[in-house]
């Protein structure tokens, strides 16, 4: 594959900080394993967000100081975490009752592909990899709002925002919004809509790197 030179997008930290800006005070949120976890570090001062981890903890805090961890206090990515004041532990059926029952306000997940109708593929690249799904299908079917955080294209420059997913689906029509290194994209009734652009990136550049029609909907949005 050839590397296509493209616009310079945000770093993972910048993407996380950008996504963190849109999380409402008092929200109950599940952050997916990997880059979405990073959002927790960028919640603005004065905003209280309660983090849920599907392995049985509400009120998840940051990683413990070295040597202070408990191998039985971990997050869904199996990394050691802490519990904040107001936390609670519960078993898996209760944890997924929160998810499936629509009690969580938001989850942010990674993606292999997102389609213009909101289909998400993020659990399997097919082929002979070992299939593993975890809680992703539960999250996308149950949480009130599903955001995706992902690079706009693969390392090989292939667009991840597509007309139809080619990888096995995680959920059908489930994604509400996508935070990429280049733009913030809503999944609207007519497909992708850019609602915010990374500084220095143009709408046309984003459109060129999106494998489905995309609208410029920035006018509908208050400038920040």
């Amino acid at each position, binding site marked *: 594959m050839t590397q296509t030179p493209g616009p310079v997008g945000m770093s993972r930290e910048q993407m996380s900080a950008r996504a963190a800006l849109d999380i409402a005070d*008092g929200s109950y949120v599940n952050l997916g394993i990997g880059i979405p976890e990073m959002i927790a570090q960028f919640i603005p001062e004065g905003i209280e967000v309660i983090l849920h981890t599907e392995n049985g903890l509400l*009120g998840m805090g940051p990683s413990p100081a070295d040597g202070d961890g408990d191998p039985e206090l971990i997050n869904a990515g199996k990394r050691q975490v802490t519990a904040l*004041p*107001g936390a609670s532990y519960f078993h898996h059926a209760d944890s997924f009752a929160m998810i*499936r029952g629509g009690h*969580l306000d938001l989850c942010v997940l990674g993606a292999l592909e997102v389609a213009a109708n909101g289909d998400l593929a993020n659990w399997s690249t097919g082929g002979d990899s070992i299939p593993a799904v975890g809680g992703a299908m539960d999250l996308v079917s149950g949480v009130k709002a599903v955001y995706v955080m992902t690079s706009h294209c693969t390392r090989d420059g292939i667009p991840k925002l597509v007309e139809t997913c080619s990888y096995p689906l995680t959920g059908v029509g489930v994604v509400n919004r996508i935070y990429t290194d280049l733009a913030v994209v809503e999944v609207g009734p007519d497909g992708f809509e850019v609602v915010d652009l990374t500084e220095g990136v143009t709408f046309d550049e984003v459109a060129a790197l999106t494998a489905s029609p995309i609208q410029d909907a920035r006018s509908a949005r208050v400038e920040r």
Partner: protein
Amino acid sequence: MIDKRVADPEAAVGGVVEGATVMIGGFGEAGSPIELIHALIDHGASGLTVVNNNTGSGEVGLAALIRAGRVAKMICSYPRSANSTVFPELYRSGRIELELVPQGTLAERIRAGGAGIPGFYTPTAVGTELVEGHEVREFDGRDHVLEHALTADLALIKARRADWHGNLVYNRTARNFSPLMAMAATTTVVQVAEVVATGGIDPEVVITPGIFVDRVVHVASPAHESDLVARGVTYP
């Protein structure tokens, strides 16, 4: 900062609309949120569908709500009471509807509503008149009936202690349906005898995590229904 406390029972039940479905915690008087029910009577909403295991006693609490003509339909397992004629009189005269549900099926339907499970199969009541018309399906050679989830606009429950996030612990057998109703209602209101700062409840012993609770109201000395009934109190 998350702080779900509201000033008083009146504020706690604000916003309930005509014809709403209201789940009310308690098994008999254990766990019955009397002060919240009385606030609901004062509020005035009518045409309610109420989910509770029973139909109250005397002329206070749930029985008073029914007596005030606010309840169009009861969903419960045991509408008889040794010391209340409120429900029977309305029922016999056709002024209140009853959906009678076996107690365990009632509990499971409420849990299902809170857990995003729209329907499930159970062996309970197969072959009885309570499940006439229900779909019957065989699993492992045994008949089961399909039951549907129950959800509500509002849940009124009682707990022993809450923190500002709405994390709850209960008192003994007053727990009963309340943790399930907290999950199944759009808005869950809890009256508690004690409010502690967030962090004041051990995360290992929380029974209802705050995510299921919307409003916390402090009722320091809740009335006991049996005391009120023994003293002949009526509400309002």
